[in-house]
């Protein structure tokens, strides 16, 4: 659902399958302070554990700002 949400927003993202990729799982745990739940979404300097539409939308605002600066 998070992926669908991002696609609809027209946000490009990289998808790591942590269930089949141990390195990605390790990295996910590292950046999220040990989360054992998916999805973990890294946006700009924010790491969100779980899909929460409002929080994700808020996090994406940094993305919009930075692209405006460009």
């Amino acid at each position, binding site marked *: 659902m998070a992926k669908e949400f991002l696609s609809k927003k027209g946000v490009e993202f990289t998808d790591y399958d942590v269930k089949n990729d141990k390195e990605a799982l390790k990295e996910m745990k590292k950046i999220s302070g*040990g989360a*054992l*739940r998916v999805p973990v979404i890294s946006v700009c300097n924010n790491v969100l554990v779980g899909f929460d539409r409002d929080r994700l939308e808020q996090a994406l605002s940094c993305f919009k700002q930075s692209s405006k600066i460009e």
Partner: protein
Amino acid sequence: MAKITIYSTDGCPFCVKAKSFLAEKGIGYEEIEVLPRSNGWKEMKKKTGSGSLPQILIGDEPVGGYSDLVHLEASGELSQKLGRAGKEEVTPLYDVIIIGGGPAGLSAAVYAARKVLKTLLVSEDIGGQVAWTYDVDNYLGFSQVDTADLIAKFEEHVEKYGVEKLVGVGVKTLELTGKIKKVITGDGKTFLTKTVIFATGKRPRLLNVPGEKELIGMGVTYCSTCDAPLFADLDVAVMGGGNSALEAVIDLMKVAPKIYMVSLTPITGDEILQDKVISSPKVEIFSEYKILRIEGKSTVEGIEIESLETGESKKLSVQGVIVEIGLLPNSELVMDTVKTNRIGEIMVDSGCRTGVAGIFACGDVTDVPYKQVIVAAGEGAKAALSAYDYIIKQR
């Protein structure tokens, strides 16, 4: 808001049109029936300057008949005259609002849309509980299908009919007793509808011990099928003694080096599953033990359990706690309005009716036995058809 008054009489088609026009928009009105040339009619003529029917007044201001009303609405003046915020859209009246986006809710949406009911689906997610599994092997026509694909197909089917959806939003309160029902969502919006189909499913039961809520997602999970692979190379504890708990242990046996199974009761699940679990050297079972707390600063570091028999407590070092102690129906919102059974499931008849006019329920939130995707989908269809019948009879 200014009040609307309609002067009408029997057998007047434009009176009926004007009234249903307002009802469709969710706008209340007072109706005064008058016979031509009666005293009431004379009074109407005095107020409006016209003797034709219907005559519509907003507050004290006469606005004319049905076509004038439609014209006012189209130009946006109706809202202004009613004293609503100028730009605010007039809330539409739905035929049916479906709450829940699992197989029951999605199936209800398809059936409602095919009956050309004005339908809105409100749900926190799409897929519901079925999304907690990887594949489905018992849905007719699919001997084995990836759950994500099946849900995508369900959603595609709903989208084909252009059903309005509000996903990612919960429902905060419901007003279900009037003829027009109100659904108020978590973001504060109010929706009006003639019927409500409740398809909210179930959620996992919590342990209710210290440390649990704080560590959700940080080692505590309620969905072993979703999360088992994440516990690779970690020691874990599975809470529960039924089939779901045994299946969780079996999933974890593939990835985790050590699995503790902690159950309040003796293990009760199917023998085939029990045999698999008991014969694994990785598994240690603590039956008739209760959990006291989950420990850990930012992630799970261990649990403390206590023997029901001896009262002796024990600490187990684990990095994961998988809770599989059953499910609770998401029926709290309607608990006071509709009848529920001992475990909180909404009681429905064979037509998914709850006993409250215009309120229907389907899927796992109801007392219908056998919680299966195909059963939920069938029940969703029935609920939508019952809602349709109800609306037709109200006309």
